[in-house]
């Protein structure tokens, strides 16, 4: 294989990562609903069942509680496991297993039992799926000691971070964005992993730092491009993993720009945006030229009406205007 680059989709990048890891580690199994012959609701396991069979890819019923617990139990007993919730929303059926069991077993066993499991689900709003299929509650997991939380924004990150997640000996929440699955991105040929806790500087700038994850990274970049035309230089940072968080990259950027904004598909209260806000205040209080700015989803269940949902979730127009207002004040 040549050591070049290709453009593939975010979802196919994940399939490549899974395939490589399944070849690399024969103890790796994949559990979920519709992930076998069907290849996944989002095509996120396309072709894998044909290659690896029922032993490695286990189709389950629609029973996320049992399936997630089975995955955790298998991981405790010597397998390496990916459990696919398909829609992240469905993990609500299984939260007791994620929070009460997976997150705690290594700690409570005094480090004797490892739980090498990736719990995968697709978050966020896409095509007005309505309030039961659109949540962006990744911060809940970051609030639970013992869980790592990955939120990839690009195809290359989806692949490299998935491989790192699978090789991790503890539980990792791997939270993709449904709206990104069919986006294409440049992905290196061949083997690579991306370490957790290393932010990606998506765009350099001098006037304001914008932090975003998942689909909001592109919203931030589009807003930055528009602001540049108005003479505002925005730096965009994608932490890529919420736990562990690259605090240093965020702090360094704030010290350079003197201003910080967070674009978040989740509501503001008690969330990821508040955590970045706190870091800015704790570590950069004297460097700030203005208060941190939170540009978040409005605190409503995702409404079905496209007009209403567009009002709820941050878009480029809103990000641009809120930054303009902040800079003007």
């Amino acid at each position, binding site marked *: 294989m040549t050591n070049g680059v290709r453009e593939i989709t975010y979802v196919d990048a994940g399939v490549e990562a899974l395939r490589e890891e399944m070849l690399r580690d024969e103890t790796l*199994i994949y559990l979920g609903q519709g992930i076998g012959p069907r290849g996944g609701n989002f095509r996120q396991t396309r072709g894998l069942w044909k290659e690896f069979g029922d032993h490695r890819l*286990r189709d389950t*019923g629609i029973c996320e509680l049992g399936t997630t617990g089975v995955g955790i139990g298998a*991981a*405790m007993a010597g397998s390496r496991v990916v459990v696919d919730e398909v829609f992240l929303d469905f993990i609500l059926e299984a939260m007791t297993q994620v929070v009460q069991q997976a997150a705690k077993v290594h*700690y409570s*066993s*005094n480090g*004797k*039992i490892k739980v090498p499991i990736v719990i995968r689900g697709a978050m966020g709003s896409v095509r007005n799926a309505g309030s039961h299929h659109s949540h962006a509650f990744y911060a809940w997991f970051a609030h639970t000691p013992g869980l790592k939380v990955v939120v990839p924004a690009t195809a290359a990150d989806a692949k490299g971070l998935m491989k790192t997640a699978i090789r991790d000996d503890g539980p990792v929440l791997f939270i993709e964005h449904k709206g990104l699955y069919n986006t294409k991105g440049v992905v290196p040929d061949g083997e690579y992993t991306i370490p957790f806790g290393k932010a990606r500087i998506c765009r350099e700038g001098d006037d304001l730092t914008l932090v975003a994850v998942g689909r909001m990274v592109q919203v931030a970049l589009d807003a930055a491009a528009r602001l540049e035309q108005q003479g505002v230089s925005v730096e965009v940072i994608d932490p890529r993993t919420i736990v562990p968080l690259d605090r240093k990259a965020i702090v360094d950027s704030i010290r350079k720009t003197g201003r910080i904004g967070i674009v978040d598909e989740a509501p503001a209260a008690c969330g990821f945006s508040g955590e970045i806000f706190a870091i800015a205040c704790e570590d950069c209080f004297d460097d700030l030229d203005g208060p941190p700015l939170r540009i978040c989803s409005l605190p409503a269940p995702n409404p079905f009406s496209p007009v209403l949902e567009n009002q709820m979730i941050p878009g480029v127009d809103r990000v641009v205007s809120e930054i303009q207002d902040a800079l003007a004040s």
Partner: protein
Amino acid sequence: MQGPAVASTQETGLDLGLYKGMVELREFELKVQELYRDGKLPGFVHLYVGEEAVATGVCAHLQANDLVYSTHRGHGHALAKGVPGREVMAELWGRSTGCSGGRGGSMHMYAPEYGFMGTNGIVGGGIPLATGAALSAQLRHSGQVVVAFFGDGAVNSGSFHESLNMAGIWNLPVVYVCENNLYATETAFHRATKNTSVASRAPAYAIPGVEIDGNDVMAVYDAAGTAISRARSNGGPTLMECKTYRTVGHHEGDPGTDYRTKEEVESWKRRCPLKSFRERALASGLFAEEHFAEIHREVERWLQDAVEYGRTGPDPDPDSVLDHIFCDEQEHR
């Protein structure tokens, strides 16, 4: 070892080793009760008094690398699976010498080196974990059998249903052991479900179900032998319902009489699994009081050692509170 000659299991159908196992579990729990009431042990404890025949009869068949997933009432399961009494006692004391270094305590106690994969503070929480361990064992061709213990309080949960369904379709090497002690915390089983036969639910998953007198250790032993052999020979899962009773409260501090009559508790005390074993053994004429006296002396010595180990063990280093949250903690602290 130096006691009087003992009649063989073949002659009597009774195994004195099982009796000794039950005595260990009983005496251990009575000692925990005493220590707890004296304010020596932190936290909460749920005692296994009255149910000893189940863990003893089941675990007697298990090999060292077989796995057990337990419950909030799990001290007996841990001891029966081979976790040293010292380490269990030290864990209840929160000592660094406990089997989980004092991080777990009664309801989150793990000793994987003995195949003990955890007590569990969540009713039904261990059932999917055991099912997954059985899937792993099957896929790794490890030959391991997995046992899930749980009470009647767990069988109306989604965890029970979803797990047995998957174990059935995948033919997993797991034995589900329901300790039906008739009360889920304080709620009588018949007040929570119309079909009060747990074993009768097995056909819904196309797996074998069997109802056993859970206070008869030999009956448990025989049924568990069948179920564990079936699991080990690729014959799939079994649901065992062991009818039993806790003759103490739900947790230490619960008098256990608000929702149960004294007559009912007394009637089950008369069916004590240790007492009934002993009566049968003596009636057979093949065992003498001295056999039992020697067992009790041995258990008393074992228990004294365990208590001393727990009492005098060091507490964890306070600065270790963040250890083991992640596997690669140095990197992510």
